[in-house]
């Protein structure tokens, strides 16, 4: 008998589930020791509520109506629901708030290896802790979690979403040309990026070089040297985070000045987790210092999420070696 399930979803059977549970257990142990309290929110939220978070570009794919005709959507991540939760349920709480979750989120992605349309995330949100200390705490916890899960070869790409925007600002690039340049950056097309920068015909050769070169810079702390002008501020911010990390965490970090993430609420440092055994990131996160304010509770915040299926694939890959 064949009874289909929705495209991009899948079942989990006991052998796999046992291994997933081990990963979740390891992560949970780290979260608890670090004082992060687990929360759960409904998988369904009012579309209007999630829209406050303004999840840029990634519209929720699963929409339905309740009996009063209100539009509900399946959450596309946990950060926006947690921002909503913090704004409405923790008004008098002592800061910073340390929250964690194990929850499914839903996106209309092309189903591929380790990426279903319904996917389980393990993540944390650290609310009320500004940069750079809050960011350093989040990165440290990220490494502790990956270590506890059993991964050995992972690296963390660290960049700043504000950096390239500031660069565009400083050269007065706005409107359509700016959108076209950002489009090439988001779609990872450096050939297109260089073409779009060339079409601007900027007189300033240093500006042209910066716009083309900076997003392609990645590597050790040396990539931050030589960043001057507006890029200097972002570089100092990243250096400040790096200085606050223990050696074991710091050596996992790759500075990546071209790093972009597809969620629209990030404001500063962003990160992404890579493992040589998988061709796609295991997860990531960053600072979202404006998001809570949109829900009426202006607080600096940082968080990250790991896709559990991808952790599992990377772990299985590392064990095979």
């Amino acid at each position: 008998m064949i009874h289909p399930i929705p495209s991009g979803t899948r079942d989990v059977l006991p052998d796999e589930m046992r291994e997933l549970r081990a990963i979740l257990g390891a992560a949970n142990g780290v979260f608890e020791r670090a004082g992060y309290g687990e929360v759960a929110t409904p998988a369904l939220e009012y579309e209007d509520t999630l829209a406050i978070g303004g999840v840029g570009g990634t519209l929720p794919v699963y929409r339905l109506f309740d009996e009063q005709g209100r539009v509900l959507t399946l959450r596309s991540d946990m950060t926006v629901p947690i921002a909503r939760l913090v704004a409405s349920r923790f008004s008098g709480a002592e800061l910073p708030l340390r929250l964690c979750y194990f929850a499914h989120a839903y996106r209309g992605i092309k189903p591929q290896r380790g990426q279903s349309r319904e996917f389980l995330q393990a993540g944390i949100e650290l609310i009320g802790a500004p940069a750079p200390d809050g960011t350093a705490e989040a990165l440290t916890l990220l490494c502790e979690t990956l270590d506890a899960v059993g991964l050995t070869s992972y690296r963390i790409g660290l960049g700043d979403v504000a950096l390239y925007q500031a660069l565009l600002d400083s050269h007065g690039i706005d409107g359509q040309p700016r959108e076209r340049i950002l489009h090439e950056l988001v779609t990872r097309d450096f050939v297109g990026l260089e073409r779009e920068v060339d079409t601007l015909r900027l007189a300033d050769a240093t500006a042209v070089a910066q716009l083309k070169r900076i997003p392609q810079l990645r590597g050790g702390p040396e990539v931050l040297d030589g960043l001057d002008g507006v890029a200097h501020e972002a570089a100092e911010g990243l250096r400040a985070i790096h200085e606050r990390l223990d050696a074991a965490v710091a050596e996992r970090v790759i500075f990546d000045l071209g790093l972009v993430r597809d969620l629209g609420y990030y404001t500063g440092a962003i990160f992404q987790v890579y493992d040589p055994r998988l061709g796609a990131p295991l997860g990531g996160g960053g600072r979202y210092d404006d998001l809570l304010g949109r829900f009426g509770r202006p607080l600096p915040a940082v968080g990250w999420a790991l896709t559990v299926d991808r952790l599992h694939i990377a772990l299985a890959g590392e064990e095979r070696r």
Partner: protein
Amino acid sequence: MSDRLTIAVPRGALMREALDLLDTLGIDTSEVRSNDRKLLFEDVGIITMRPSDVPTYVESGAADVGITGKDVLMEQPEREVYELLDLGFGRCLMVLASVAGDDAGAEALRRLGVMRVATKYRRIASQHFERTGRQVELVEVKGSVELAPLTGMVDAIVDLTATGTTLRENGLVIREEIAVTTARLIANPVAHKLKAAAIDAMVEKLRAA
């Protein structure tokens, strides 16, 4: 972790020039050139495949970098790969073509409101007609696209042409140029970070070549 790169090389029209370029990087491609049945050349880190499969292998991480046509990348925009360099060779035109003489496509559009177009490039074709505000019915074919308008099955084709010879020999003329495509160097997004030094060194040498 080894910093040696695994390179996806397209078989077919782009292959010879792709291998010439790899020679300039000091990669020994002689075995790849002499053996056209073998697909995986582990000693030199080369895997060979049809051009349209290159983004698939690179996206999954089975290859760290790859060489393929811009036409392939335009047709598969959802692939999560970095496009690093325009390699300049393999220059082709993506064109709208139809049987010489009266423009059957324009005629169909005017009288019937819809043009029937055969293509292997569904994404590129539908985007082109959307951008230019024309309604089309796309007919996807796998083999020689030139046959489709000759038999009257469609009014026009969207296809890639290097010299225009095949079009001419089949009595077809170019009506519109849609895009210029060349070979591109692409990279897996994780390899781009974890093997940054090796990839940057490769890009630098290729830029200079």
